[in-house]
């Protein structure tokens, strides 16, 4: 076997390996999708059924029992709104830290990240009470604010890394040209970091769409998101796997389509600006 053949073989093995791993990751989603077309009895049959006569009765039931579009609208408003609010705060913050660093900048970033390490349930009580006092329980506004806050650290850190790739001389040149800080950000920094900002925003939207803890705990009927809708379908008794699968499929579908359409940008965001 020549070296080139060996290399080819290695590549093929690697490709097959990658497909297997991808398959393993994808399988639960596939099974979820499949189960959503089964009857409740088929869903728990042992051995599991791969072939069956599909039924739409689960979807029909969901349509009957709930208002899917209201939940979907709530998910859209809170994930996009939370991201927009977070961006509004994160862009100036990341700008300040990237271009006017002090010797505490690194520590501040680390401290911000460390807030993500605390279990959210630790602050459930105070936040619940604050929302209650301000009449924000079960409102989209409360979720938008909390979503913005929980994603803020990670967004600032990603933007910080993107901004640091901009040569500081370019900003100095704009300062010599008389650009105000606002113009410097809007006319120089944002256009140059546009790809990074877009992918960071996409990532944030996906994360917020799937956020469960706060949306389940702070909302009920009015501002409930798709995730909380899913949760409401798991009941302590009776058979619910097929219905749960159907509602989960409905909850995942929009964001999966969204992710698929924007995958190029998303991958860039996830590699933290390693790709210029």
């Amino acid at each position: 076997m020549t070296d080139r053949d060996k290399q080819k073989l290695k590549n093929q093995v690697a490709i097959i390996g990658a497909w297997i791993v991808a398959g393993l990751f994808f399988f639960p989603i596939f099974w979820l999708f499949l189960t959503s077309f089964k009857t409740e009895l088929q869903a728990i049959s042992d051995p599991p059924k791969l072939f069956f006569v599909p039924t739409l009765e689960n979807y029909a039931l969901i349509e009957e029992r709930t208002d899917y579009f209201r939940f979907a609208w709530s998910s859209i408003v809170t994930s996009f709104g939370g991201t927009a609010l977070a961006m509004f705060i994160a862009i100036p913050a990341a700008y300040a830290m990237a271009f006017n660093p002090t010797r505490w900048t690194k520590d501040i970033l680390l401290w911000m990240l460390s807030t993500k390490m605390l279990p959210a349930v630790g602050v459930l009580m105070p936040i619940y009470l604050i929302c209650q006092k301000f009449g924000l329980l079960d409102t989209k506004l409360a979720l938008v604010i909390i979503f913005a806050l929980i994603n803020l650290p990670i967004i600032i850190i990603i933007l910080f890394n993107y901004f640091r790739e901009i040569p500081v001389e370019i900003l100095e040149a704009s300062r010599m040209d008389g650009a105000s800080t606002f113009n410097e950000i809007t006319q120089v920094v944002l256009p140059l970091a546009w790809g990074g900002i877009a992918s960071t925003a996409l990532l944030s939207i996906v994360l917020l769409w799937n956020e469960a803890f706060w949306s389940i705990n702070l909302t009920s009927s009015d501002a409930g998101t798709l995730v909380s809708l899913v949760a409401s379908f798991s009941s302590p008794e009776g058979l619910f796997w097929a219905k749960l699968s159907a509602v989960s499929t409905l909850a995942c579908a929009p964001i999966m389509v969204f992710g698929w359409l924007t995958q190029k940008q998303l991958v860039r965001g996830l590699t933290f600006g390693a790709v210029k």
Partner: protein
Amino acid sequence: MAGVTITNVSKSYGDIQVMYDINLEISDGEFVVFVGPSGCGKSTLLRMIAGLEEITSGDISIGDRVVNEVAPSKRGVAMVFQTYALYPHMSVFNNMAFGLKQAKTPKQEIDKRVRAAAEVLHISEYLDRTPRALSGGQRQRVAIGRAIVREPDVFLFDEPLSNLDAALRVQTRLEIARLHNRLGSTMIYVTHDQVEAMTLADKIVVLRDGRIEQVGTPIELYENPANTFVAQFIGSPKMNFFGSDDLTDTSQESFKNIDGEKIIGIRPEHLQACEDDKSMIKGKLELIEQLGEYALVHLIAESGNEFIVKMPQPPKAAKGETLNFSTQDNLVHYFDHGSGARSV
């Protein structure tokens, strides 16, 4: 139009001091070059004039206004960066127009000035391109154009040629000199290259470790270097230094001042081959660099000291052979052995 006055300026980054008590007078319309080895503080000084770096203590005035607290764009200065620092997402036109737009200059005026500058710099046909689609030399012109359109009193250049290849460097150097003649503005130019300094400057400021070593016209620095550092930095190849033990005959008129406390400097172009009886310095031939127009002859003196002689013709001698050299009295420089300062 304005000169620049720097009075008792020091600069520290935290506890680390990088500039010490700089005093300098730059007249209106003068072309001043800051030169010195890497890390000596040239850029820091320039950036303090630009307003990009805070002044730790002392004052900088442009015209008759102290500008310590004035924003960069309000100082009447424009800067050309080593990395060009063009706005990558804007067309060449918009790169040049950016500053004027910030100043809310009328559109027609912007258009007129940008086109005029582009004409001068031969970049008119690239106005719609982005910097990405330009060569290094063209980008440099755009960077210069961006400075010109703002019609500053003082131009600041930070090693503007160091990213260009050798041929383009010579050409652009000439164009900067022409630009200075035409505009008559004050220009401050930073470089580590003494050839650029010698060819461009009305006045050279030699810096070392955050201090000014000497200020003078190119010819003053060449003929009367204040110390061994300046002597070695200005001129190529570097000035040769000799101790008294290198000299064949210290009784000669040229060397009447020499003693153990002094070192002697003689430029490579000021040594001539001569007969044995007139010899001032002997050296063993080590290597000849033939450059066509002249030859650089590398020799080793008896003490082991290496020196170079620039000769119109390479000597017809074999490696290891001893050659004799002499010079004229007025071309010999004396320096204090300890401090390196010029003596006599």
